[in-house]
């Protein structure tokens, strides 16, 4: 259809459409939802887009002499679902509300009260329950990348900066952020290079955006300049979308973690921490397997914990102690979990309160959730749990519970404008209005008795309905006795309805009193919300603690069901696991058939395990389980092993061919080399390195040479050497063990043979793989017999 509106030249004849045009001019990059009565209407191009995406009928509005204006609308009540559809399709929506009451004469005033974008979607139903919804803002200046991220509903605020160098490009930094935060929306400063792999939008008004918030932020403490700029721009953007200056975000936390075990994008993807490699689903990912948290906050926190494994031994032991306590005290654990099960997403509820989109029912739900916290405290104290909520937050919570329960009725409604939820005795003005209305109603009821006596019509009734208000109903049989001062209001089949001047007067008193009390209740509601928001920080802190408890209980629950044991953390540099299992694969494997394996690695001997043998034998699963067990130990969780002695690790690298982003225009081999270079540059003696089949994307001799050299590089310097599991299909590399005896040890996954076919035993054994089972595997995979036979012949020739 037609392209952009030419705002200078187009004209509309009605004041309403002129008003619309004014609004649309300011929000050209958004779909404007124009409130008309009970509907949000879209006009012109917006209507065409809206109708297409939402599947609603495109109609039109008469434009008088100029033709018809396309339009379509959604009902106010069902707005949320349509909104999220549009936003998920990549559009921004500006909500333009009626801000004054219609008075029959003038045009109602309208204002955009909020802009909804993918990162500022506030409807809980459209959001992932156990995942944060971030807006990420990135800038680039003088080779420094600044990044800031905000989750508007949980009010979490992250920011930081990093310097680009040889092996850290802008795209890599961005991919990293994307893998960790999985942002719903990415904003770039104009100075950033174009990016294809992700959907981004550029903040053209960057210079304007960074001005004011910068000053305010600078006051909060020492923030580096690029970080400050990026954070300021993000705040401005959010203020623009929410139409408010008060966002009340939490204090800034570093977006790049310093004191945690580091994992880069490659590691995160190769370990399938949040999504499987195969289809990118959450199902059968590491997180999904270990996540049995009961609250949404707990689920989100667990996800954050996985990205921030602890490196401080004391902190880890503290978590492990709590977990051990809950493993032992089964009854207390089950009780606490059953309480947590009933707790709603109170973190997001507080977020909505903060943004002014809450209702009385929300407040009551808040009181219930806080009550659960008190219950948890009671149970925790009674069972002598080492994990207790802090007293200050609990006492604040108690106050808020009392305040809400004192003020609001038992089950408040969702609409704060229609009254009927503030209790009596809370506000004198409100009580007066209610009393006035009540008195009039009593008078009306007495009128019924009076009129019955006066007219002698004993069946006379005074009734009420929404359309006609109060009326006196007299059946047709008694019409003759109707006095003259009865004014006819409505005629029915069997009766007539009347009013009297006095009745009308009282009716008006009631209407006025109702209107006033509704307004008053709304004001009181706002006051209550404001009061609650004053305690936002201690409440938020309490919720965070509840989320932590949920995670610790989760670890204990998991430890019992999946038969995990407590790891021992050391600083010895040694990694020792007995009967270790892969937490996800063992869960999927039927009938407990997962084969456990031992491993010993240290900074000295052996430092590098060279694992040869065919692919289906279980090399990859084994190596990954070592990484996952190490990670889990650093999370403060029990681990899937009989014994696990884990040394404090600073980084885990998992280099595997599977997660390469071929779409980014780099060949598999190139990506592999880039990442390997990164590992060689950054791995320290405290790191754990997993190399799965290096040198695959190039010719054999090239590949062998490069793999050999890399393996050597990893063990050369004693100080430098990270613990490494190195899987390769190049049997030639087995000679490395002779060159570096003790340091490099050969291993293989045991395979037996039965009638010429391989039987995978999934057991790690010392020594290099003797047979190349490639052909056997090919045969198993179903390669046709003639092809296999031919391959056998060729193999014999080559081996000579």
């Amino acid at each position, binding site marked *: 259809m037609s392209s952009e509106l030419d705002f200078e030249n187009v004209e509309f004849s009605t004041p309403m459409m002129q008003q619309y045009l004014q609004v649309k001019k300011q929000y050209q990059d958004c779909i404007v939802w124009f409130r008309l009565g009970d509907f949000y209407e879209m006009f012109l191009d917006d209507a065409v887009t809206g109708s297409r995406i939402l599947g609603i009928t495109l109609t039109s509005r008469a434009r008088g002499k100029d033709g018809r204006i396309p339009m379509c609308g959604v009902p106010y009540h069902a707005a949320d679902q349509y909104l999220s559809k549009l936003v998920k399709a990549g559009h921004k929506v500006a909500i333009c509300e009626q801000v004054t009451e219609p008075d029959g004469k003038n045009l109602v005033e309208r204002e955009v009260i909020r802009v909804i974008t993918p990162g500022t979607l506030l409807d809980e139903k459209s959001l992932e329950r156990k995942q944060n919804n971030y807006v990420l803002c990135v800038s680039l200046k003088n080779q420094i990348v600044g990044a800031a991220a905000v989750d508007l509903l949980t009010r979490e605020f992250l920011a930081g900066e990093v310097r680009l160098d040889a092996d850290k490009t802008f795209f890599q930094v961005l991919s990293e952020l994307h893998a960790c935060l999985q942002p719903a929306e990415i904003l770039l400063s104009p100075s950033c290079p174009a990016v294809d792999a992700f959907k981004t939008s550029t903040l053209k008004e960057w210079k304007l955006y960074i001005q004011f918030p910068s000053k305010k932020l600078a006051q909060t403490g020492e923030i580096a300049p690029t970080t400050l700029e990026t954070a300021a721009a993000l705040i401005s953007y959010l203020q623009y979308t929410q139409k408010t200056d008060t966002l009340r975000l939490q204090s800034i936390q570093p977006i790049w973690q310093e004191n945690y075990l580091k994992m880069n994008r490659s590691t995160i993807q190769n370990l399938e921490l949040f999504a499987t490699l195969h289809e990118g689903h959450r199902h059968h990912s590491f997180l999904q397997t270990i996540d049995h948290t009961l609250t949404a906050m707990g689920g989100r926190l667990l996800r954050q914990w996985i990205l921030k494994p602890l490196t401080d031994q004391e902190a880890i032991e503290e978590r492990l102690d709590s977990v051990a306590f809950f493993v032992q005290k*089964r*009854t207390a654990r089950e*009780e606490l979990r*059953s309480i947590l099960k009933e707790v709603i997403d109170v973190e997001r509820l507080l977020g909505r309160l903060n943004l002014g989109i809450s209702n009385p029912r929300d407040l009551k739900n808040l009181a219930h959730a806080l009550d659960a916290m008190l219950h948890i405290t009671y*149970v925790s104290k*009674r069972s002598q749990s080492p994990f207790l909520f802090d007293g200050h937050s609990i006492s604040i919570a108690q106050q808020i519970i009392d305040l809400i329960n004192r003020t609001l*009725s*038992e*089950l*408040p*409604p969702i*609409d704060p404008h*229609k*009254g*009927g*939820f503030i209790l009596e005795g809370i506000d004198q003005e409100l009580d007066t209005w*209610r009393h006035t*209305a*009540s008195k009039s*109603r*009593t008078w009306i*009821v*007495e009128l*019924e*008795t009076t009129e*019955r006596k006066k007219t002698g019509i004993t069946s006379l*009734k005074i*009734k*009420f*309905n929404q359309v006609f208000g109060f009326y006196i109903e007299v059946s047709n049989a008694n019409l003759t006795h109707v006095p003259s001062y009865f004014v006819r209001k409505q005629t029915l089949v069997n009766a007539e309805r009347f009013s009297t001047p006095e009745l009308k007067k009282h009716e008006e008193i*009631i209407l006025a009193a*109702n209107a006033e009390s509704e307004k008053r209740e709304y004001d009181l509601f706002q006051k209550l919300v404001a009061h609650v928001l004053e305690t936002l920080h201690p409440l938020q802190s309490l919720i965070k603690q509840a989320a932590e408890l949920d995670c610790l209980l989760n670890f204990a629950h998991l430890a*019992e*069901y999946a*038969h995990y044991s407590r790891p021992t953390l050391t600083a010895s540099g040694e990694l020792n696991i007995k009967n270790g299992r892969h937490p996800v694969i063992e869960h999927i494997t*039927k*009938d*407990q*058939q*997962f*084969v*456990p394996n031992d491993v010993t690695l240290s900074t000295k001997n052996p430092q590098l395990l060279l694992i040869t043998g065919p692919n289906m034998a279980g090399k990859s699963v084994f190596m990954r389980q070592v990484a996952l067990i190490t990670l889990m130990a650093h999370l403060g969780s029990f681990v899937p092993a009989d014994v696990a002695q884990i040394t404090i690790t600073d980084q885990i690298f998992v280099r595997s061919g599977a997660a390469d982003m071929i779409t980014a225009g780099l060949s598999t081999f190139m990506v592999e080399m880039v990442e390997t270079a990164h590992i060689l540059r950054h791995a320290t003696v405290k790191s754990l390195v997993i190399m799965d089949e290096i040198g695959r994307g190039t010719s054999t001799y090239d590949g062998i040479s490069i793999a050999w050299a890399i393996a050597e590089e990893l063990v050369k310097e004693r100080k430098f050497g990270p613990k490494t599991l190195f899987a390769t299909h190049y049997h030639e590399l087995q000679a490395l063990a002779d060159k570096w005896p003790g340091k490099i040890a050969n291993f293989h996954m*045991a395979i*037996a043979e*039965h009638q010429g076919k391989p*039987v*995978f*035993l*999934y*057991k790690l054994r010392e020594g290099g793989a003797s047979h190349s089972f490639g052909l056997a595997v090919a045969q198993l995979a179903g390669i046709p017999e003639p092809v296999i036979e031919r391959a056998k012949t060729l193999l014999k020739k080559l081996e000579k």
Partner: protein
Amino acid sequence: MSIIRPLSSTVIAAIAAGEVVERPAIVVKELIENSLDAGATKIAISASLGGSADITVSDDGFGMDDEDLKLSITRHTTSKIFAIDDLNTLQSFGFRGEALASIASVSIMTIQSKMSSAEIGYQISVRHGHIGEVIPVGMPNGTTITVEHLFAEQPARRKFLKSSAIELRRIIEVVQAAALSHPEVSFAFTHNQKMILFVPKKQTLLERAVHLFKQSPQTLLHVDAHFQNLRIFGLVGTPQLAHQLKQKQYLFVNHRPVHHNALTAVVKKTFGALLDPRTQPVFILHLELLPSVIDVNIHPRKELVRFVDEARILENIAQAVDQALKQQDLSFHYTPSPPELAMLHDDNKASVPMSNLLKSVTDAWQVTPPAQTEVMQIDNTYLLTATPPGLMIIDQHAAHERILYQQFLTTFRTQQLQQATSVLDPAMVIECSAIEAQLLREHLPTLAKIGFEVEPFGEHSFKISQVPLLYVGHNLQQLFAELLEDFAGDGHPVSLDSVSQRTIAYLACRSAVKAGDYLSQHQRQALITQLATTEQRFTCPHGRPTTMIFTISDLEKMFRRR
């Protein structure tokens, strides 16, 4: 010409096996016992369709090598692996060694096993008696046995199987019994891929029982007694537990589940009058004794057992159980429902008795004291008097409430038939909150049926123009306030009966004598006499108890005379 032909050995085996392996639960039982014999610490059981589609039992026990694997499914009476414990010397219950062979002949069975000392594991399959070859397989230490298509070729046997749900229940019973016989072993049972039961490793018997029965630890009493060549230990349930759990009696002889009718009878006799005669005691008892003293019945299915010196053993059981019952204070303990909450009050031994228990107890017995018996009033709230079984305590308000309720109910029903209502003039206006208004609107038709004419009279107000005759003169504001509270608690429209019941209950409560009201001797006696002829006299309309009885026997026990 010979028409009769001999049956093949396969068929014979199948018939014999069919007699022994009646149902999936027996298969599960056999497999679990094999796993326990192998020293497993973890046993995982899974089944589909009640076990008729497949059953898998996998453990982390000793495992078998390839030779044992072959032998295990051929008819062989002893296994090569001995348990070392004296009390557990080889107990072949007749067909134990033949169990696998029997099962294999009526199903498709696959066994995989690996010993910790072995390099590799082995697998063998049997299809309805036809044994396949042994092949190597990669697997962890232990044994996994899968039984598929049970009775696929024995349609007669298949017909005897009950529904999946019933067969499933039988399997659950087997797993629970095994779990109680070895509380240190972890059991996991999944059916149709849903987890049905899980117990962790290394629990004590008490922990295990608490977990499985979902009861509080105070309801289970420890039994531990030593006699010559016999040790009896385990748990016995308190009398009130007998009411909540049916059919929870477990007996293990040297960790094998058995049945012994005389023993069960002895336990019940030891409880004596502590127990409601209509209930069975709850117990989990382990007997450890020398195998030479045990006489195994020829019917292995029933797992009945006889003892050589049976009279003495039964006597010992009685002593052990009696000792256990004596340890504890058996005054009825107030356990608020649900039972989980009971754990909230670890040391709550307030002797406010449990209403349900007493209700069923006293139902069976005479309550009415003879006329002219002196009645005491304690705290102007409770009436005490002698009664044929012993001592009776009555909550005067609760009792009067019930009396009035039944009277009002009768009157109400009569009035309903007569449609006796009364017009309110002037009408009454009530105000309520937004949600209350909504709920009331939903109940208007129901209230109309009872005889209340209620109409909307504003956003959140209502006009009441007519009420049933019964309610005239009572505080209607209060009545509706309480009704609305009830409705809000339900959150959805409630039935006609429920609404009537509540309004009448409210009336009764308001009109009855209160706690703290002094009653004359005459009034007390009148109350008790009236109560004796009132329907449902043991609880007030809100479900609280009206009467408590302490029999002479209870008193004796409380004062440790017995």
